[in-house]
């Protein structure tokens, strides 16, 4: 049987793949069928019935959004009857809809407004007794039930894509509304995706409400800079007030195809303000010329990284960036087995996967993009998702099909067990087979606390899977056996259908790891800090000796988790100096920062493309054509697996360095809207082990750091590991994210 179905829409011959609906085929062929409730990234809910079409030989109308075509059928999308049906639906939508378009936030980009005009609804022949509907205030989100048209887009997105499952429809005929699920008020991760998809002004951002209108805002296409998912977004700017300083009013995304987390949507005001301070600039130039090293964070563009590399070559200094260095080290170990420079999976691959293993990351807060992709895979493909981590994650509980809880520090053993299970029947080389034969699985099983039956159960659930993804998080990068774990992961990718996704911890960790040759961080003096610590600090954060623009004030490129080079643009102006000025003063000539885009090395897969020729939008069909994908680079296969010795043990009070939802770094900490809860969160079991209780002020000592925090009891947590936020403190990213710590209660003076 052939996989394609040939049929006709409005006399045009079209072709459908198996599983496609009439609507998707029509849209792909630029045939217009109006819809109100349809959204491409969720399954059709059929609540609006606007998408009705006629099919030859079928009585009545059929819904094109959820009906697959049959071979040879003739579909008509527009007849007088259909037009009347749709106009009546629009009239019903307009019943008692408040006539407040003049003040409504959605006016100008409102689906209801557009369709009402499209169908020419100029008078009303239906009526209903109106009801008192109170505006609900849900923190960052306001809900006005009077404006709601019950299209259910928000509910479907929240459930099927985001995975919070925080809202539902309260059915009651004309008095139906959207309500928080199992809760008085909205208790969710505040991704704000419901605001984005709302076709009317029912769900709006409480901060944005009534501050501007769609037609007043300028759109700047950019990339979210809070994590490595590289989500596309648009900063909407306007002159604030009558004194004319430009500021970002809100962030929007192409909600039809892409998602944003709350940090991207509400955490946009991290821009830096400065004027040209010449004496600070001269000191900065002098500091760079005399520096032995530059320490920098991965919150920079590829162009900045390239210019820092030029400074390294010119002055023979060292470059420190532990985060990117460890990632690069991990990737080179991976390349030594796989023979490829870049990992093979993308977020799209995760979305389409039917099986996934996540190891070494609290992925829902480390990289919400991956979380949403996993949710999509789970809801739409029924994907089997194995979550291997020492701590359960309540945010993933509806998605994860198997939790594999291992002991802290034993990732190498877990990886060996996984590889052994997955590669059981693979055609391994003798050397590789003997590696597995030599392993003492009894010991590994005991130390990791993962039983053979867990691996068997996983393999059983994966038995029918075609598209499998292995997702490796940033716990692993700083693990002392990271290279061996990388080799095991490469082995899985090499011999099976598994593709591999290695999650970079920050927005441009991947880019920096490809562009710069980094040195091992040393505690020396004469270090210039670039968005990081140093004796002279050049930074877009507070306490800088020289201020530079933030990432929403720069143009340049990032490399995202998809190995895609993404361009970003200037949303807000910056009056001070930039790295480009510093580099120029040091005698390296570029006309513009973005001239470095085409200089990026082809050895790492970069293409010699001008910045200005990079596109930054999604096509109308949802294809992501932003920037370009890194070229595949072949590497030597010379890696050998190391024998697994003893697995480390972590006892006592262990803390895990992980940020709460919506917080990622010092930039998100600067923003106005995002919640800043910096307390140490732990279970009751942890509290009794550390002898502390809810609300205590505590002092935590780990590594060489001592910090003060409040302790907060979290009912969703279990076990003896507490979660320590890192967005407000400087954490040494070369250290393993789990830390043995000493916790003392301090009394408030």
């Amino acid at each position, binding site marked *: 049987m052939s996989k394609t179905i040939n049929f006709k829409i409005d006399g045009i011959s079209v072709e459908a793949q198996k599983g496609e609906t009439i609507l998707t085929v029509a849209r792909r062929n630029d045939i217009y069928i109006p819809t109100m409730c349809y959204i491409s990234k969720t399954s059709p809910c059929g609540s609006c019935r606007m998408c009705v079409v006629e099919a030859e030989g079928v009585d009545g109308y059929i819904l094109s959004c959820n009906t697959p075509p049959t071979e040879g059928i003739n579909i008509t999308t527009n007849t007088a009857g259909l037009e009347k049906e749709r106009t009546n639906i629009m009239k019903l939508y307009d*019943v008692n809809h408040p006539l407040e378009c*003049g*003040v409504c936030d959605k006016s100008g980009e409102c689906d209801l407004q557009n369709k009402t005009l499209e169908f020419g609804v100029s008078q009303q022949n239906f*009526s209903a007794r109106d009801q008192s509907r109170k505006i609900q205030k849900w923190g960052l989100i306001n809900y006005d039930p009077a404006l709601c048209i019950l299209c259910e887009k928000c509910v479907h997105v929240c459930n099927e894509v985001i995975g919070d499952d925080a809202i539902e429809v309260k059915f009651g005929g004309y008095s139906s509304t959207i309500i928080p699920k199992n809760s008085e008020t909205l208790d969710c991760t505040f991704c704000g995706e419901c605001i984005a998809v709302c076709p009317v002004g029912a769900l709006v951002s409480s901060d944005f409400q*009534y*501050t501007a209108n769609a*037609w*007043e805002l300028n759109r700047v296409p950019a990339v979210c800079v809070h994590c490595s998912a590289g989500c596309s977004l648009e900063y909407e700017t306007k002159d604030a007030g*009558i004194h004319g300083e430009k500021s970002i009013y809100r962030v929007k995304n192409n909600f039809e195809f892409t998602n944003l987390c709350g940090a991207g949507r509400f955490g946009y005001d991290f821009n830096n303000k400065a004027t040209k301070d010449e004496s600070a600039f001269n000191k900065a130039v002098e500091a760079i010329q005399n520096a032995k090293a530059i320490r920098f964070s991965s919150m920079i563009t590829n162009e900045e990284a390239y210019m820092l590399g030029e400074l390294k070559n010119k002055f023979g200094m060292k470059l420190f960036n532990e985060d990117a260095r460890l990632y690069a080290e991990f990737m080179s170990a991976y390349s030594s087995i796989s023979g490829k420079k870049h990992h093979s999976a993308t977020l799209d691959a995760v979305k389409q996967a039917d099986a996934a293993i996540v190891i070494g990351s609290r992925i829902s807060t480390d990289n919400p993009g991956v979380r949403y992709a996993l949710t999509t895979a789970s809801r739409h493909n029924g994907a089997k998702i194995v979550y291997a981590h020492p701590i359960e994650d309540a945010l993933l509980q509806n998605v994860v099909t198997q939790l594999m809880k291992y002991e802290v520090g034993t990732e190498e053993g877990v990886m060996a067990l996984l590889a052994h299970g997955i590669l059981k029947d693979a055609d391994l080389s003798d050397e590789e087979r003997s590696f597995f034969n030599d392993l003492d699985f009894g010991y590994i099983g005991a130390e990791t606390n993962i039983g053979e039956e867990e691996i068997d159960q996983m393999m059983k659930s994966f038995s029918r899977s075609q598209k499998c993804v292995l997702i490796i998080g940033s716990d692993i990068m700083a693990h002392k056996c990271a290279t061996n774990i990388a080799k095991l992961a490469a082995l899985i990718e090499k011999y099976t259908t598994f593709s591999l996704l290695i999650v970079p911890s920050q927005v441009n960790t991947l880019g920096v790891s490809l562009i710069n040759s980094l040195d091992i961080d040393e505690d020396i003096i004469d270090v210039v800090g670039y968005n990081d610590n140093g004796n002279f600090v050049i930074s877009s954060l507070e306490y800088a000796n020289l201020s530079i623009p933030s990432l929403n004030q720069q143009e340049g490129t990032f490399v995202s988790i998809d190995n895609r080079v993404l361009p970003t643009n200037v949303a807000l102006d910056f009056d001070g100096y930039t790295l480009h000025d510093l580099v120029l003063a040091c005698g390296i000539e570029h006309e513009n920062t973005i001239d470095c885009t085409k200089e990026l090395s082809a050895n790492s897969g970069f293409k010699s493309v001008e910045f200005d020729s990079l596109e930054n939008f999604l096509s109308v069909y949802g294809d992501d054509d932003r920037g370009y994908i890194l070229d595949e680079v072949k590497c030597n296969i010379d890696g050998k697996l190391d024998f697994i010795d003893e697995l480390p043990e972590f006892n006592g009070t262990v803390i895990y360095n992980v940020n709460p939802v919506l917080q990622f770094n010092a930039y998100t900490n600067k923003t106005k809207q995002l919640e800043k809860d910096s307390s140490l969160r732990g279970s009751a079991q942890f509290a009794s082990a550390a002898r502390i209780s809810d609300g205590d002020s505590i002092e935590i000592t780990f590594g060489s750091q001592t910090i003060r925090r409040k302790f907060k009891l979290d009912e969703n947590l279990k076990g003896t590991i507490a979660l320590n936020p890192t967005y407000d403190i400087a954490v040494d990213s070369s250290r393993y994210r789990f830390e043995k710590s000493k916790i003392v209660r301090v009394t408030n003076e």
Partner: protein
Amino acid sequence: MNNEAFNNRDVSDSYFLVDIEDYPTEPWDKFKRVIKRTFRIELFVGLWVVIREMFKFDLHTVSYPEEKMPIGPRYRAIHEMKRLWESDTERCIGCGLCEKICISNCIKIDTRIDENSRKEVSDYSINLGRCIFCGYCAEVCPELAITHGGRYENASDQREHFLMYEDMLTPLDKMTAGTQVEFEGFGAITPHEDERVKKTPLAY
């Protein structure tokens, strides 16, 4: 229609030369021409009109600034912000269309949500130094809130004068006295408009 007359492009027959005297070249001839032109009768005709009006004491000009001419309702001078007749509140809803349509970019508006969860105009200004008084703002305003008034004397030693919303808004005492003048220009309410309003289902 017969196009013969138009199609015939040969108009050489109907041309004739105007009898023009040659320009004088000699200084004496030039002097004679000046004298001839100066003491022609036309001069005295013109002078007679002036002298006649001078002695009639019937002035036809307006003695501005003591006297002013009435101006047309559609005259476009300094903007006015109107209030609602029924509640005395401001008509402006902060939709920002005037800011958007302004072709000389002189309108700035800022809105916020007030304590009653309503949209409130927090800042509004028109830079009259840039304004070209095209009237687009008044034309686009969906609420007939911004209109052009008749205040055309906008000379000042400060550019910042007459810019603020408060200056343009109808004063409350004027409102209570019922002396707010309606705009009769484009988009204005026609007389007895309320009699033509149709009932919506809500009113049944």
